[in-house]
């Protein structure tokens, strides 16, 4: 009886959190999937059921596919820089940099992460400005005029310029997380590796990487999910242009929902984003667990 009362009390304490979670997380997901089967907009008196038409529209929409490719590019580059490079950066900071300088460098690397994404976007719009931007001036100063571009105004460079800004902003944040993970590795493991004759590179691959696997898994999930949810930086810097070349799924969703008044199609795009990020997270967690068992 007492145990039953304890369970009921526990449920009562959980209730507010469950209600909030249900209303603000799960209900919108379910509702979004439902709405993706309708044709509707903010002005239509009644949604019309259209089955899988919105998904068929996505399949035949070249800008949807371009957006998806841009998101994938975003994810791949982010994995390389925000996971791979930041892990190397964290290892170098911890192993080779003097303790006093280490703290200063950590702060310097972390500063971009505390700048609002909108401010960072505007800042880089100036850096990329074709007339007076720092980047073109720098290229000109070192005799690389042929590399100068209207970075945000050309189809071939716009999305890569945005991705570049995003790496500048996030690499310090993930590096600091890796630093925390590295600091938790028992020093005895490194000492044992050194006794066995392992150099710095071997220690990195044989001790550091395996011991920060959980953090790596977490950051991979966050980075890939973040790459598929990217929105602000694209809106601020190009709004998806020129000629929709820098559209990502988030901005294409927004344009269809709030500018083209096609909420049903926008809901279908949102569902695709959800399935992709959710599926990837599940896959990554499963792989992470299996590797942990192998250890």
């Amino acid at each position, binding site marked *: 009886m007492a145990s039953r009362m304890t369970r009921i009390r526990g449920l009562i304490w959980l209730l507010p959190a469950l209600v909030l979670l249900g*209303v603000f997380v799960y209900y919108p997901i379910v509702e979004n999937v439902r709405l993706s089967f309708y044709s509707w907009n*903010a002005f239509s008196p009644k*949604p019309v059921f259209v089955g899988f038409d919105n998904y068929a529209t996505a399949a035949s929409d070249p800008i949807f596919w371009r957006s998806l490719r841009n998101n994938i590019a975003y994810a791949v580059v982010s994995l390389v820089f925000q996971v791979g490079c930041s892990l190397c950066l964290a290892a170098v900071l911890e192993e080779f940099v003097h303790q006093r300088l280490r703290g200063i460098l950590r702060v310097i690397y972390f500063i971009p992460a505390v700048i609002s994404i909108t401010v960072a976007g505007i800042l880089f719009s100036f850096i990329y400005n074709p007339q007076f931007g720092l980047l073109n001036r720098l290229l000109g100063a070192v005799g690389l005029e042929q590399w100068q571009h209207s970075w945000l*105004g*050309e189809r071939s460079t716009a999305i890569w310029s945005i991705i570049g800004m995003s790496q500048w902003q996030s690499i310090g944040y993930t590096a600091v997380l890796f630093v925390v993970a590295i600091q938790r590795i028992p020093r005895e493991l490194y000492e044992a590796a050194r006794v066995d004759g392992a150099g710095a590179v071997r220690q990195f691959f044989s001790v550091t990487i395996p011991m920060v696997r959980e953090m790596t898994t977490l950051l991979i999930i966050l980075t890939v999910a973040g790459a598929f949810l990217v929105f602000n930086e694209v809106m601020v810097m190009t709004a998806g242009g020129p*000629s929709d070349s820098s559209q990502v799924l988030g901005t294409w969703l927004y344009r269809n929902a709030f*500018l083209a008044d096609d909420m049903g199609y926008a809901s279908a795009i949102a569902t695709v984003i959800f399935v992709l990020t959710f599926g990837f997270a599940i896959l990554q967690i499963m792989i992470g667990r299996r590797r942990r068992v192998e250890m």
Partner: protein
Amino acid sequence: MSTRSRITALIAVSAAGALAACGAPGTAAKTTASANLTSSAATKSGTLTIVTKFADPKYAPYFEKVAADYESANSGVKVDLQQVGDQPYKDKIRVLSASKQLPDIYFSWAGDFANKFVRAGLAADLTSVMGPDTEWGKSFSPAALKAFEYDGKSYGVPINLDAKYMAYNTAIFSKVGVAKPANLEDLIAACGKFKSAGYTPIAFGNQYGWPAIHYITQLNAMDVPQATRDADYNPATGAFTDAGYAAALDQFKQISEACFDSGSNGLSHETAQANFLAGKAAMHFLESVEFSVLTAKGGAPAELADNWDFFRLPPTASAAGDKGALTGAPDGFMVNSGSKNAALAVDFLKFMTSKANGAEMTKSIGWLSSVQGTATAENSFPQLEAALKDISSANSFAIWLDTVTNADVANAYLSGVQGILDGSQSPADVMKSVQDAAAKAKKSVS
């Protein structure tokens, strides 16, 4: 029942409650536009809700002052004024529309943006109080009033007059020896002379697409007969097969090659404007509501503030459309057809568009009011007065292409002109996209 089952049931019930509370989108009863629109002093009470897109610190104080003045004049009325930015407004008003929570008064651009509210039954028919034959209606510029008509009825209250002009630096024109161009061919020829003299012929930044759209709006108006444009800009009948549309894009391509700096897709309109203000460019295509930034009071350097004038973007000698059309449109306010305060809303809008408030608008924020006789030498400056005269002489308003057409067509144009600028698309490619978008729009409307 196990603990897990109970938790599952709890989540299900919570979700069901949320579903019931929130309801489906757009399923509320469609309201009609039969509200009583006349109020007396005795009925002036309650809270009036207003949403505008004028959060810009340059413009917001004027609207706050009008609201405060109205409250002072009507002690029983409280005005709940919410002002958001241009882009956030587009999101906010759609969310409010979908949830049937529109304010009593809301902002609207002229064209298809306003027509969507009308077609959805969300805008009150104001013909009885502000039609062209009414006292209030006669106080407006006829072209401004017409911009908010739909099927011969008035649905929006125009608050300002805005038109697109080519501002030019008279000192640079004199120095280079160029006269005001009479046609597009002259303009393009003049650009070569400015380039040779070391000036950017036309300061142009197209980072977000709309500056190029304003050129296309004017060129379409001059190259395509009005009846054809009217049919094409209507999503139910749009086809965009007239040769004038492709000609307009060709002309834009010629202007871009001869007159713009390269890389204009990567420059913002404001950056380009700064080049014009700094005397580095001979011309700049801008709206009359922006004229004040070219004045000393608006912060322009004296070298420019004392040496600028404007002209309309000229047509080609052989243009087949309406050569007297002028790109522009008034901004306006609509009244929620479901508002219980419709009469009070109309009364407030009458107050806002009184001659005194119209004159104050021109004086304080440099906008031309849609109310006739409000711009004078005392509250404006010579170029603004000249613009008012020119607007009055325009054959018709060519409403901004990105608000007058269906959103899909507008997007095809926005994307296409950026492609023309960076050389990745030809005018023919753009027209193909526009025609496809028009076909899609026609299908969705039908």
